[in-house]
């Protein structure tokens, strides 16, 4: 074991860099961009952690990973224990190590960031998560004795998978229902292969199945079974069916051929593997000049996908500036490196097409930033007379998603807010006893890790609920 370093020695180590595929090579393939840290580099990065007595990084993590603890174990060369520690807090470290916005969560809290760069917590999480994947047998879930309770999880995205794993650990009999033919939710239909290889999701799902979790695909709750029917069969239910309904811009021309929602575009390419057409049967319009509207991770994913499908120009159209973009900084940086173009302070007002109804361009206006709006970001204001056209043959609309009413419509007793999101109490419970909810169906479109945090909290609350002695029925009448 390496001798313990002094704080001064630790401070002298610079933040290590992630090896990446070269930008102009990777923008033509779907292989993962980040290649992970070699062992030596990971151990060196781990040494940078000052092992704070009162670690702030943990407070920034939505699932409360014991960050300094797993990093310390790693720096001691004890990867197996580091993995055990990490997996105990976070069911999907190989996923979150790749897709979490660390720079606004754990890493922004890192004390080293005050003077220099924070510890690369995300890289280390990924390193340990990947080690655990390669050593599956040593990382099976430790399960409590069977509770005799049956629970259903609706949706197999990050929230559902996390809850399923936690509920299994508590000893409950878990069944996960997935509407699509493959489990993983947004991890398989939304996030591209080059950012999150699908094999990782498949491995995480397999790990849950080994722990006894049943995953049933092609089952649409709200159609195949209603929520009231599930309530008859299960002691508790966790709804994590996401915010699956795409929002369009609501401008003229949006139904022209060549206009996609980001959901459709990414689902075709990721879930249906349209990038392999005609080897895979599902096609996708490739286009030479693709305009993606939006500034979030989904917009980056779409625009970077377009480049990989062979577009000459992949242009991101965003109504604010780079600074206000909600995407992870790494995604923006990668997108820039890969040769994407950015049209900042631009908003589409119409999609124009030819006589055959194919998209030919986006009619846009230029914006300037005004007073901050409710979200705290400067409100974009149209500059009068600034109209111009942006030629393109495919438009991808990535301006957000909202709650899908398919499930909630079959259960009028379930209380919703005005946007159709399910209302829950501080125990993650909905207005229906024993029915819990979390992730995007509660929050509106958010992140993988927030959904996972919800899944973890809800599982705990469900366990408490299931172990509570049954109330004596009141039969006064």
């Amino acid at each position, binding site marked *: 074991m390496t001798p313990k370093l002094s704080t001064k020695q630790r401070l002298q180590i610079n933040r290590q860099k992630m090896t990446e595929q070269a930008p102009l090579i990777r923008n033509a393939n779907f292989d993962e961009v980040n290649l992970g840290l070699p062992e030596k580099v990971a151990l060196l990065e781990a040494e940078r952690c000052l092992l704070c007595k009162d670690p702030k990084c943990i407070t920034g993590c939505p699932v409360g990973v014991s960050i300094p603890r797993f990093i310390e174990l790693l720096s001691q060369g004890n990867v197996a224990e580091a993995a055990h520690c990490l997996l105990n807090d976070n069911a999907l470290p190989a996923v979150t190590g790749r897709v979490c916005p660390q720079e606004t969560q754990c890493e922004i809290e890192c004390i080293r960031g005050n003077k220099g760069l924070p510890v690369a917590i995300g890289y280390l999480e990924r390193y340990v998560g990947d080690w655990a994947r390669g050593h599956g047998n040593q990382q099976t879930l430790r399960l409590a004795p069977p509770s005799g309770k049956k629970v259903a999880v609706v949706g197999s995205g990050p929230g559902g998978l996390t809850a399923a794993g936690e509920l299994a650990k508590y000893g409950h009999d878990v069944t996960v229902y997935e509407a699509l033919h493959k489990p993983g939710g947004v991890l398989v239909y939304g996030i591209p292969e080059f950012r999150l290889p699908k094999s990782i999701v498949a491995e995480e799902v397999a790990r849950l199945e080994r722990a006894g979790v049943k995953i049933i695909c092609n089952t649409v709750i709200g159609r*195949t079974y209603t929520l009231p029917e599930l309530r008859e069969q299960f002691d508790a239910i966790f709804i994590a069916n996401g915010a699956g309904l795409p929002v369009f811009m609501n401008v003229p021309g949006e139904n022209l*051929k060549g206009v996609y929602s980001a959901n459709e575009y990414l*689902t*075709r390419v990721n879930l249906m593997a349209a990038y392999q057409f005609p080897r895979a049967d599902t096609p996708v319009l490739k286009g030479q000049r693709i305009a993606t509207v939006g500034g979030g991770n989904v917009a980056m994913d779409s625009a970077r996908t377009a480049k990989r499908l062979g577009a000459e120009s992949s242009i991101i159209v965003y109504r604010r500036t780079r600074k206000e973009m909600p995407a992870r900084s790494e995604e923006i940086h990668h997108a820039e490196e890969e040769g994407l173009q950015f049209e900042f302070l631009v908003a589409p007002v119409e999609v124009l097409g030819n006589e055959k109804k194919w998209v030919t361009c986006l009619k846009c206006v230029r914006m300037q930033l005004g007073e901050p709006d409710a979200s705290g970001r400067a409100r974009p204001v149209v500059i009068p007379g600034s109209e111009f056209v942006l030629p393109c043959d495919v438009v991808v609309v990535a301006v957000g998603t909202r709650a899908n*009413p*398919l499930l909630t419509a079959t259960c009028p007793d379930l209380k919703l807010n005005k946007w159709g999101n399910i209302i829950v109490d501080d125990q993650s419970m909905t207005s229906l006893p024993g029915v819990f909810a979390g992730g995007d169906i509660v929050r509106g479109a958010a992140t993988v890790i927030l959904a996972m945090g919800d899944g973890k909290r809800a599982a705990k609350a469900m366990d408490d609920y299931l172990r509570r002695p049954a109330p004596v029925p009141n039969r006064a009448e």
Partner: protein
Amino acid sequence: MHNIVAKAQLSPNVTRLDVVAPRIAQIRKPGQFVIVRRGEGAERIPLTIADADARAGTIALVIQSVGKSTQELVALEPGEAITDIAGPLGHPTELIESGRALCIGGGVGTAVVHPIAQGLHDRGVGVLSIIGGRSKEWVIFEQELGRLGEVTVCTDDGSYGRHGFVTDAAKDALAAGGIDIVYAVGPVPMMRAVVNLTKPLGVRTIVSLNPVMVDGTGMCGGCRVGVGGQTLFACVDGPEFDGHLVDFDLLMDRLSTYRDFEQQSLAACKEGACKIGLK
């Protein structure tokens, strides 16, 4: 996995597969559809549930083979299986409680009309069906619909039944009066022609739309259709709509989106890349 228990060739390019799907067979309602994915690498395609046997736990899928995906589906034989079937999806048909309904089916659309006619018949609504095809061999579901009420068959070439389009027969039926509602399913030009007949008469007309779909649960928005000036999703808001409000031009147009790809897919298939006919 969903085993195929029976297969029948209904017309030169329309095949019926009876497939094991007990839950769907039990709860499906007229007008609802399923999303079918034959196997690894296959497309997800929406297919209306043409019939179901709740006791046997099977549903009937009626498939017109036009592209690679449908050709591969109809190449499946009893004993083989379809990997994924999700459903039942979409809203059930709005069925009237009493009176008389005119059910119009063109080509493979006749299979979609069948469960609607069944639902109406079960409620005691009088069913008058008008169905058509290019020639005699292209007419499907004549017997099944015959069990539910009077059927008029039309063929484009006059080789069977009445010579002409279903709209000609529909015109006469509407002129005779006593029709409370019309259900029309078939090629887009046929549905548009029916709507053009019924709109001036003010007879409510329900049509079933078949735009391009991926997930079938409202997630992708690929199936957006124009209805009464609004954009709706056929998968979750439909697939049936008030025909008098449907933008058929938009539907026709969006249906042509992947035409080039379909050709490419079939071409690649001919070069030996596909599973048609493989056992």
